[in-house]
């Protein structure tokens, strides 16, 4: 009955007490129970209340994903678990730093494409650029793929940050 369920992508936001070991607890839960992590971001969001927000993109069957949320909810330092995909109409953004090396026509083409993607040049030499690009994960994928034949050297991505649309919280 479970074998036939299709795999889905989910973005899950977790508010946690910012205390030692809390990220290890969350990650340990994923590795220990065999859940997938496609991306993960974490940062303190409320210094007064010592609250951090962890955003995890995962995939699995609906049953696994419900189980994953229930398991997260069981961790003592976890304040709240919110399914940003299922329970909210949310916006997702990710930041990428992309280094491209090249000269001549390829260098010009990479700059032209970066403009089309509204990327910023944040570092340059005579033969390289570092682009800063923000957008949905799929936009970043597309940009990185375009840079590949133009001399892609390295990519650093932040992982997904997500927030609910509208005036309500989360």
């Amino acid at each position: 009955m479970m074998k036939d369920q299709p795999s889905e992508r989910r973005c899950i936001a977790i508010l946690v007490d910012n205390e030692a070991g809390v990220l290890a607890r969350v990650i340990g839960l994923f590795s220990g129970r065999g859940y997938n992590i496609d991306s993960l971001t974490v940062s303190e969001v409320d210094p007064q209340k010592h609250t951090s927000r962890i955003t995890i993109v995962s995939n699995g069957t609906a049953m696994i994903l419900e189980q994953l949320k229930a398991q997260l909810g069981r961790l003592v330092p976890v304040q709240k678990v919110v399914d940003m995909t299922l329970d909210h109409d949310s916006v997702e953004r990710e930041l990428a730093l992309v280094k491209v090396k090249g000269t001549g026509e390829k260098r010009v083409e990479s700059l032209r494409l970066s403009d089309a993607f509204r990327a910023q040049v944040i570092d340059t030499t005579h033969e390289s650029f570092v682009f800063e690009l923000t957008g949905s994960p799929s936009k970043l994928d597309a940009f990185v793929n375009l840079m590949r034949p133009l001399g892609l050297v390295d990519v650093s991505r932040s992982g997904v940050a997500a927030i609910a649309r509208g005036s309500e919280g989360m």
Partner: protein
Amino acid sequence: MKANKDASHPRMTGAEIVIQALIDQGVDVIFGYPGGAVLPVYDALFEHDQIRHILVRHEQGAVHAAEGYARSTGKPGVVLVTSGPGATNAVTGLADAMLDSIPIICLTGQVATRLIGSDAFQEADTVGITRPCTKHNWLVNDVDTLPKIMHDAFYVATHGRPGPVVVDLPKDIQFAEADYTGPSNEGHRNYQPQVKGDPDKIEQAVAAMANARRPLFYTGGGVINAGPEASRRLRELVQLTGFPITSTLMGLGAYPASDPQWLGLVGMHGTYESNNAMHDCDVMINIGARFDDRVTGNIEKFSPGSKKIHVDIDPSSINKTIMVDIPIVGDCAHVLAAMLEVWKRKKIKKDPSMHRDWWQQIDTWRARNCLSYQQKGQVIQPQYAIERLYALTRDKDVYISTEVGQHQMWAAQHFKFEQPNRWMTSGGLGTMGYGLPAAVGIQIAHPGSLVIDIAGEASVLMTMQEMSTAMQYDLPIKIFILNNQYMGMVRQWQELLHDKRYSHSYTEALPDFVKLADAYGGHGIRITCADELDAGIQEMMAVDKPVLVDCMVDQQANCFPMIPSGAAHNEMILSDQDEPTEISEEGKMLV
């Protein structure tokens, strides 16, 4: 303890704070083993006589003893061990308590904070190692936070689904001073488990129960953990509805085994009637059980036609392996009370005609007499040994612990429990070596009672050193070994799954258990034939000190009935005489 202006917040060292918190939490006994990194706490303990310390012989034994204490009393068990090997030795016990939901507070010594991470002597990353096998753990790096952490530790261990917690105490924190604060009633900022069930869901559940033609209660350790009131309410509800009831290994005793509505154990070695009733029921009422794989067998074929009600205090237990129709998150005692209230309010009458066919069907299953065995001649059948043990101890105030394996299943099948908290066994983790130290903890909690560890000769050797603990504290525990010289359950699986290739499951060199008992200062009894059995058991009970009974049993006996791996509840093997069942390739992968 130094004087302080504020009497409610006296100034203390970290070590004193630990002891004071234990006293304020109502702890009267702890199980432990000293070592360098925990000496300040031991020093503070030296001055207090409110807390009794039981010195074990191995830290695993400390945790199992605390588990035995906790399960037989309903109170949390407390453990005190040192850093490094002290903590790692405790890990098996913690994992055991985690899987069986036993409230344990384990205090571990740690190297001084400035040495953490330097590979110091007896340093281990205790919070790292115990993170997946505890409900929560704390490394105390500021003595000012220690009082709250101590009280939080008790709160987390005992609220919601109970479980083990670890408080890791660096040595400098034990010496540092802070203001002590007593327990508060505020609970925990985040951790507030849902105790009361959703009233709408409870109404739905009762409606489904009222209309059921083939209902079945399937109960588990959650009923025991919810306290004696939960067991009383379960009995009332089962009587009121007239439904049959079965239970997991963890739930034995919540419902009296002598009652006609009781079908016996469910699962891999459960009764024919219980497992067939699970398969064929139309409404399954799961109270405090977790659809464990030992119970469900092949989940694809598990109880295909039933509407399933699941009461569990842990939301993550719901729909984990089996999708249910009516999930109710809450404490069993509360939900059972609410179910009773709705049933009575709606004036639902027990209608015997509605379930007559169902009970008739159950009676035909019962008529198979699935637990029967042949006791012929003088070779003792292990089932017979358990039956005699049960018969001869019926009028006693008896507590049973077990090790893990065939003897454990035979005990679950043939020893009948009438009360909760009388049956202590390692269910989830299946920890060989659990029973002897657990018996130590049980006997500490119930000094005048008869405490028996029903053991196998392989399991009991894993923690045999706790005989020495039993001697030190004059604990007259009885260790009743069903000795077949094999790791019996391993041998049984090798027979069924590996063409009788008995790879390393036979113990060539066993100690002389009678001499071993003598060596510890206890009493040893050997039983070699059926005629000696009753006298041996009588002697065991008559001797007022730790007793090792070496009961030699049939080496080839197998534990039946059995649901083979990968099979459904209605595909049980009842005996060796059954047609050999072909175990599927998929089934062989399962444990």
